[in-house]
């Protein structure tokens, strides 16, 4: 457990000092929001806000991909990844540390992105906050679990920018379905449908287990 906390601390301190990852993800998300504005000129503001959950999650998915790629690209510098592989003990804790760090950094970007979307598309998020936060938080757990398992693979094949989206997106359809359904309900002020919550929880659980056990083989030489 101490190992996971050490890695979480290391990633957050490293990111705080360089801040490049969070900035890159945030700028990317805002750009996506602007792209949607121009891509959907025919929609009146209230129609746009009905689409908001889907658009928001599209921005979330692609900025998370950026962050996950960067998270392990940093580990390749000075071959620090081998340093992690050298550590004794169960490598599942290393996975949890990295996944938690990714979750924290991605969540920061998501909060700011939600603000930008609310601004651009005139959505009053305040009533939806508790519901939205739950759904976004759970969805991000799934993204980080699968992403932290697959990113070290993609990053080391030399095609990282292309391979991670190709590997990760198909694995995230269940998360996307549940998250958009749940976010839509939250934004519309309705209670979050149990089916969406259940789907997110089930998928998160499965990916956390598969990643915890599989990380040993991913980290290996």
């Amino acid at each position, binding site marked *: 457990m101490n190992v996971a906390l050490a890695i979480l601390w290391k990633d957050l301190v490293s990111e705080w000092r360089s801040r490049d990852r969070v900035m890159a993800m945030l700028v990317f998300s805002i750009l996506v929001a602007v792209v949607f504005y121009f891509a959907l000129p025919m929609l009146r503001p209230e129609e746009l806000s009905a689409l908001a959950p889907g658009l928001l999650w599209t921005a979330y998915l692609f900025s998370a991909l950026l962050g996950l790629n960067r998270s392990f690209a940093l580990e390749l510098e000075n071959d620090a990844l081998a340093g992690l592989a050298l550590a004794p003990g*169960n490598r599942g804790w290393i996975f949890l540390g990295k996944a938690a760090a990714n979750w924290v950094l991605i969540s920061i970007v998501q909060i700011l992105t939600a603000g930008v979307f609310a601004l651009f598309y005139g959505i009053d998020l305040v009533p939806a906050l508790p519901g939205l936060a739950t759904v976004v938080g759970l969805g991000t757990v799934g993204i980080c679990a699968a992403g932290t398992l*697959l990113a070290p*693979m993609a990053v080391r094949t030399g095609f990282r920018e292309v391979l991670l989206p190709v590997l990760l997106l*198909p694995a995230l*359809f269940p998360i996307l379905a549940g998250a958009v359904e749940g976010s839509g309900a939250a934004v519309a002020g309705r209670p979050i449908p149990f*089916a969406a919550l259940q789907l997110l929880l089930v998928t998160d659980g499965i990916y956390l287990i*598969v990643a915890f056990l599989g990380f040993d083989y991913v980290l290996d030489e």
Partner: protein
Amino acid sequence: MNSNPEGHGNAQASIPSRLESRASRWRRPMGYLLAALGAAYAWSVMSAPIDSTQGIIQKILYIHPPLAYGAYLGFVITGVGGVLFLARQREDLDRLAVASAEVGVIFCTLMLVTGPIWARGTWGVWWSWDARLTVTLLLWFVYLAYLLLRSFSGSSPRTARFAAIYGVVGLVLIPLNYYVIEIFGSRSMHPENLERGSLGDGMGLPFLLGNLTLALAFFYLLILRWEVEAQRRLDDASTSSGA
């Protein structure tokens, strides 16, 4: 849990392995059986009665679902082969996993071709986000990604390990995607049911023969592709070591 026990299992690295040789020996007789079965299958499809409601287009039922079962069979073998490779370091199972993924993607692609043809013939629309088609489409992306992961990272022990892990992710996604489509898939589609066409009398035989023929075709192609993979690995070995 010290995750790497000493002497991590003695991988039996001979190519082709005993299992592969035994499988190859079965391939020739399977080929003959496949030809015979195929003929019977073709005959039974032609002579099957025309469905009163859907018309002749309904006969796609004898090829479309068997293709899907072949695809899923391929994906399951890939997942299980990968897990066994990780557990026992047996490279022949890794070769089986990649062979099965490729043949599975071929069957899956054909399923995604015949599906819209059926939808077009029946409702005049190419793609209807039908539950079964959508799940197969999602899995098609997963196993295409599996093959891309393989080709991007070249043939090495690490690639085999990575692919095995992604094979497990793929395996988990089969029930998950069904679960997703069951809950969310149905909300936007008209409630038609592409699959359960009424299997009236005289229609059971072609459906059965269709499944048998395509399953046999799947295994025939699987073993063939498995042998090709073994030869490719031998080829890589000889070129890289300059023998």
